């Protein structure tokens, strides 16, 4: 469908959200907790913190939960009873809304969707993704860790959002990207005022400090470059980068249970863990943290892009902000582009 443009006052936005909550929507928004901000279910509009640049974690877990039960089984004697986990996927009623996320987080959804539908179609992911409506708010002031512009997005990108809001003074301009977005506001149209496309504030010119293609060209040719081993001596393999990343999506499948019953689950996993590639023999093809960090760079900036023509990174900068040893991916990618030129 054609994009549609609206305007809504700050006051009406609050009404919009509070009405949705009253109408049994589950609204996931940035919320303050323990001195930080995380996504969480809000009980009212005022619970949300829309001033924060980015919550500490992405809202990945609403697409790929930390732990997902694929199926459950139980024994009675030698008979086995199996229950499919898809039956209990939550949010089927299409009433879950991510509200107040940023364009980078929103862009992560379609990036992950490609993985979960490449060859095997992952019902669990698709069921959740289909039922999630995403209302994002454009960033006004990205910080030094942000590099979405370099990642072919921008602080104002609507890519991946169903509805994107831009704050202009004390009101918001809104662009409805698709039917899902339109459907969401359909019942609340009285709060929105449709405007013409040219009344919608144009995107600013966001500066880039490197060209990501150059980084890829370095990665293409330098698998064994010393840079990786030297630079990531300081990596302790904690995996925070992957767990806070909106696009990292690796998981591990485990069986849990006893002699009577059990379940097969999949849990988040991280390529930064030594055990991730450890073979039964004891051999580990990615034996150093340098190897493992390189893998993350390769996957994000080379392997994924070769398959899907996009990068597996939205430039949100979470991995840098949260790294306990201050490894800054923006610096790292910039290093790669410089090495490519050297």
């Amino acid at each position, binding site marked *: 469908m054609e994009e549609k443009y609206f305007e809504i006052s700050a006051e009406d936005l609050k009404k919009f959200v509070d009405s949705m909550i009253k109408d049994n929507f589950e609204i996931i928004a940035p919320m303050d907790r323990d001195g*930080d901000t995380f996504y969480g279910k809000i009980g009212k509009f005022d619970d949300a913190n829309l001033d924060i640049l980015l919550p500490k974690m992405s809202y990945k877990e609403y697409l790929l939960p930390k732990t997902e039960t694929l199926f459950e089984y139980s024994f009675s004697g030698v008979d086995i009873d199996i229950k499919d986990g898809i039956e209990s996927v939550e949010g089927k009623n299409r009433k879950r809304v991510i509200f107040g996320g940023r364009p980078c987080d929103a862009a992560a959804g379609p990036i992950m969707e490609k993985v979960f539908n490449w060859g095997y179609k992952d019902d669990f992911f698709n069921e959740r993704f289909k039922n999630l409506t995403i209302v994002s708010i454009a960033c006004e002031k990205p910080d030094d*860790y942000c590099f979405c512009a370099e990642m072919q997005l921008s602080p104002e990108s609507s890519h991946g959002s169903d509805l994107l809001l831009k704050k202009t003074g004390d009101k918001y301009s809104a662009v409805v990207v698709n039917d899902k977005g339109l459907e969401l506001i359909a019942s609340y149209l009285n709060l929105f005022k449709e405007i013409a496309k040219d009344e919608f504030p144009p995107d600013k010119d966001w500066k880039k400090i490197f060209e990501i293609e150059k980084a890829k060209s370095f990665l293409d040719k330098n698998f064994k470059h010393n840079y990786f081993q030297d630079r990531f*001596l300081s990596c*302790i393999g904690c*995996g925070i980068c992957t767990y806070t990343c909106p696009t990292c999506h690796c998981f591990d499948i485990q069986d*849990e249970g006893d002699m009577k019953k059990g379940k097969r689950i999949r*849990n988040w996993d991280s390529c930064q863990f030594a055990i991730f590639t450890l073979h039964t023999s004891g051999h580990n093809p990615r034996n150093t943290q340098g190897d493992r960090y390189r893998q993350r760079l390769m996957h994000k900036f080379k392997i994924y892009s070769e398959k899907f023509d996009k990068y597996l990174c939205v430039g949100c900068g979470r991995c840098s902000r949260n790294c*306990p040893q201050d490894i800054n991916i923006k610096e790292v990618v910039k290093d790669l582009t410089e090495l490519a030129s050297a």
Partner: protein
Amino acid sequence: MANIDEKLQKIARDLLESKEVSLIIGYTGGSHPQRMRPVFITKPEDVGRLSFNRHSVQDLAVFLKKQEVKKFGRIGIVVKGCDEKALNVLMQEYQVSRENIKIIGVECNGVIRQDLADKGETDLSENTVYDKCLMCGEHTPILHDYLIECADPQISMSGDIKPFAKIEELDSMSSEEKDVFWEKEFDKCIKCYACRQACPLCYCSRCIVEKNVPQWIDTNFGKIGNAQWNLIRAYHLAGRCIGCGECERACPVNIPLMLINGKMARSIHDLFGYKSGLDVDAKPVFGVFSESDFNDFIK
């Protein structure tokens, strides 16, 4: 400040030039002026990168458990008093040998909490440092081959702030109330194991959570799996944790891990009179016993 850096650099240069060590682990400037990051210097000409200040929060001893770092053989390491205690435990537990390590001790009167530093905090005061700094008993590293004196003044204490006061608060709660508190905290856990990875003393090559015959710890990120993980982590560090607080600092979801570690340290001290990391020659508290150990809880 510059003075400290110069001294550090001089020591590092001498050590590298004389080939007494092949690697120096230290601090250098980070993503922004209030952040420091680890740096690994192998060439004398690079020592200019070394620096130290009140933002040097990391416990660099954590790197000594990395195979990639061990490969260097003889290593020089910059440590604060708290970090040095980790070296002592590593030596007690045969993970590091004294001959292979040159300890460049830096006197420290506290480091600024990273969450505040990220917001621009630069003042060193009782409101800006970690709780561990407020009750630090080892401003000067216990063992050191070199010692660089402190540039920062001692923090004055108003008495209003009681470090780890939450421990006493929890101690006074009923088990239901404690349960409610911890269930909420553990619910946040995303099992990234950053607490483990950031810990200088979690050096097992195969962590117990990675052992699956039997599956000691549930793999799920649910209530039980998370609680089990946090329990075993605390238990395995009881009597060993030296309170550097790296686990809590690393935790991306802000679980107050130092409450548990602190409680364990207190219990160990109360029951066995032992404090971890103070004496490299001491026998670890769970490596010995006394016939007169606490027995009241046993019928």
